[in-house]
């Protein structure tokens, strides 16, 4: 592997990660990862369970401190406090929603937390994009898992983040929800948002990605840019990583 991986050279990168490591006791969840990601690029991250993908995303989201190495988001070193966090949108397989509140209240709360003035229009737009306007006033607990995931995505996008970290975002979505998410991520990319998406579905990941990586035991086992991504060989590497993981 090259010591530094760059995903787009023209614009200053949104994400710069250098020899990033995160340990939990004696276990190295992320073991010296280096890459950068330019605006409008999408890195699809594959790997078996426990490979360190979610930990890497949590470090970039400011939820975990790196043990060593460095990471920058929009030029701000992590953990970078409120300014860095305001640039990031986090989607997870956990919805991070309050089940007693409605979709509108959940998204509105997030919008206000991110300091969006006149948030009403942005909230409506986010919910509309995920086709959730009709159920916007239904308590979250009354919605299906897929609908909750749609609201969670609307929540993560309401502040127009520069970097979207999506950890298994398709989890729980039906076909129409998955299409809406793919379209939304495509729109965000066109608008210059950088995206890191973790998924176990190679087809979904590669359809979005300008770059792809397979992670195993905290390291990038393989990394390719869009013009060199070959779905067949990627599938083989991914299967090898899964087999090695047992």
């Amino acid at each position, binding site marked *: 592997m090259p010591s530094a991986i760059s995903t787009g050279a023209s614009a200053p990168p949104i994400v710069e990660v250098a020899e990033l490591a995160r340990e939990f006791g004696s276990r190295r969840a992320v073991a010296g990862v280096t890459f950068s990601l330019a605006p409008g690029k999408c890195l699809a991250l594959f790997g078996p369970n426990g490979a360190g993908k979610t930990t890497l995303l949590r470090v970039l*989201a*400011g*939820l*975990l*401190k790196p043990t060593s190495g460095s990471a920058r988001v929009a030029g701000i070193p992590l953990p970078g*406090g*409120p*300014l860095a*966090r*305001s640039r*990031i949108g*986090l989607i*997870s397989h*956990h*919805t*991070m*929603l*309050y*089940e*007693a*509140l409605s979709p509108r*209240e959940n998204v509105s*709360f*997030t919008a*206000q*937390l*991110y*300091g969006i003035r006149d948030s009403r229009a942005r909230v409506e737009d986010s919910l509309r994009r995920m086709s959730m306007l009709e159920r916007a006033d239904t*308590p979250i607990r009354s919605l299906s898992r897929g609908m*909750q995931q749609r609201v969670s995505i609307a*929540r993560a996008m309401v502040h127009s983040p520069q970097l979207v970290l999506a950890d298994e975002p398709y989890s729980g979505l039906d076909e129409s929800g998955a299409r809406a998410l793919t379209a939304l991520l495509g729109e965000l990319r066109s608008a210059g948002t950088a995206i890191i998406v973790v998924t176990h579905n190679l087809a979904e990941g590669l359809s979005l990605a300008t770059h792809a990586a397979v992670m195993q035991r905290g390291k990038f086992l393989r990394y390719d840019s869009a013009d060199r991504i070959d779905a067949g060989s990627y599938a083989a590497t991914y299967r090898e990583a899964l087999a090695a993981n047992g």
Partner: protein
Amino acid sequence: MADILSAAWLIARKDLSIEFRTRSAFFSAVVFALLGLVIFYYAWDPTAVTATDLAPGVLWVIFTFSGLLGLHRSFGVETADHAIDGLLASPASREAIFLGKAIANLIFVGAVQAIAIPALALFYNLRLGAVAGPLIAIAILAAIGLVAVGTLFSAMAVNTRLAELLLPMLALPFFVPIVIAAAQATAKLLSGRPVIEVGAWLKLLLAFDIVFVAACTLAYPFTVED
């Protein structure tokens, strides 16, 4: 500072909206407080102990334990589907998250007090009109200290398997000095001593509040930084 307070109020409003919708913790706390009053009332021998001697102890035992019910809920609402990650990944500072939770808890405890104090006066036939002002001051000052400590330990305990057991075990020793000061001040008030004699206990409560609010606000980020 304005950003912190604005985010804190936003978080407090969200917590209160959730509690208003579910009312689970509030009803539990009020029922617990009223049941406590009833039990103490029927265990009380008025010929051995006067109402003014017994009431302050009863009041603060009830507040302490009913408050714990609300404090446990405080971070409990954040654990369902990892809502806390959404808060921590937002630009709201850790201090704002703590203060928001503490403000919501303070309003929660205040609402329980607003029901329990008149109920206490009713059960023990206390005339609180003349001492209402100082009694409210004691209740507010004591609630601030209890809530600061309880909110911090709620954050620490929430991710453990024995959260409901751990919270009282961690918090109660720190509640002791606040409860002693509050109970002593209340006893003096109810026994008809001049308000000036309560002043020293009020100052002590204020000192506890300043120390606990500052220390807990500064300590909270360490409970969530992994």
